[in-house]
């Protein structure tokens, strides 16, 4: 949806769209929000994408010091790469290791590190994913094409409150000597949620 204030008669609006426009109109009429604020928020959200997460991961792979700072204070570390995720929400990056694989879900709604990654994928908001990720995470990941070996512990993080979680995947095999930009190109949105892991360049 873009911020504009003229109707599109050629497109039948869904009941949800009609409702949200009515609410927006009321908020503006009552002086709670201005149209400029609504537009600014839409621009803010549209400027964020999984690419930000990929850049953070690639930098963490090539720079141990940065990785430590990312795990310690995600917002501050993100600023080093010009990614402004400042705001009231706190972030926690959870690191995959040879012993542990992390998966993120929000069973209550659709909490997601939006200030870094933008809007979550539709499947992340589905009742199916939200109810199954906590109960049978390995089966869910298998459906994404990722089989977690039995000797690796799966840790599911249900983002129930004020923190938003992002996964720091492991650097894939066969990436020695790759540039940071090349490495970032291997990291996909679903890898940052933990539903999958980045593939080595031979398979990507």
């Amino acid at each position, binding site marked *: 949806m873009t911020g504009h204030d003229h109707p599109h008669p050629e497109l039948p609006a869904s009941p949800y769209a009609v409702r949200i426009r009515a609410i927006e109109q009321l908020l503006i009429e009552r002086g709670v929000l201005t149209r400029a604020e609504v537009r600014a928020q839409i621009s803010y959200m549209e400027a964020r994408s999984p690419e930000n997460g990929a850049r953070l991961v690639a930098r963490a792979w090539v720079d141990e010091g940065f990785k430590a700072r990312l795990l310690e204070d995600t917002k501050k570390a993100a600023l080093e790469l010009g990614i402004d995720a400042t705001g009231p929400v*706190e972030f926690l990056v959870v690191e995959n290791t040879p012993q542990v694989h992390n998966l993120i879900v929000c*069973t*209550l709604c659709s909490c997601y590190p939006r200030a870094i990654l933008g809007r979550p994928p539709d499947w992340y908001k589905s009742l199916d994913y939200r109810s199954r990720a*906590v*109960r*049978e*995470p*390995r*089966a869910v990941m298998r459906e994404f094409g990722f089989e977690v070996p*039995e*000797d*690796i*512990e*799966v*840790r*599911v*993080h*249900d*983002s*129930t*409150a*004020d*923190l938003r979680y992002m996964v720091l995947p492991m650097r894939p095999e066969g990436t020695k000597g790759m540039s940071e930009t090349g490495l970032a190109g291997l990291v996909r949105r679903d890898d940052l949620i933990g539903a999958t892991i980045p593939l080595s360049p031979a398979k990507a």
Partner: protein
Amino acid sequence: MRFSPGESVVVLDLKRPGHVRTPSYLRGRSGRVDRILGEFRDPEDLAYGGDGLPEKPLYRVAFEQRELWPDYGGASGDLLYADIYEDWLERT
């Protein structure tokens, strides 16, 4: 902060209606405090137009998947973490 990392806690089954951040599948379940996440404005007050003050301590609690789900099919070390506010927790 009433609880420290490593302590065993149980999630209370408070019958609070409306906007709460403690999922029903964890109520009455036991876990272990993994870390203290800090203090945050109370979401149960913010949801209804309040200022959310005083702030409430928030904990990340770890639950063993095999204890949560009797038919859990994964490895025995598999864990589930959730972020729970202090007034929903009690020592076991």
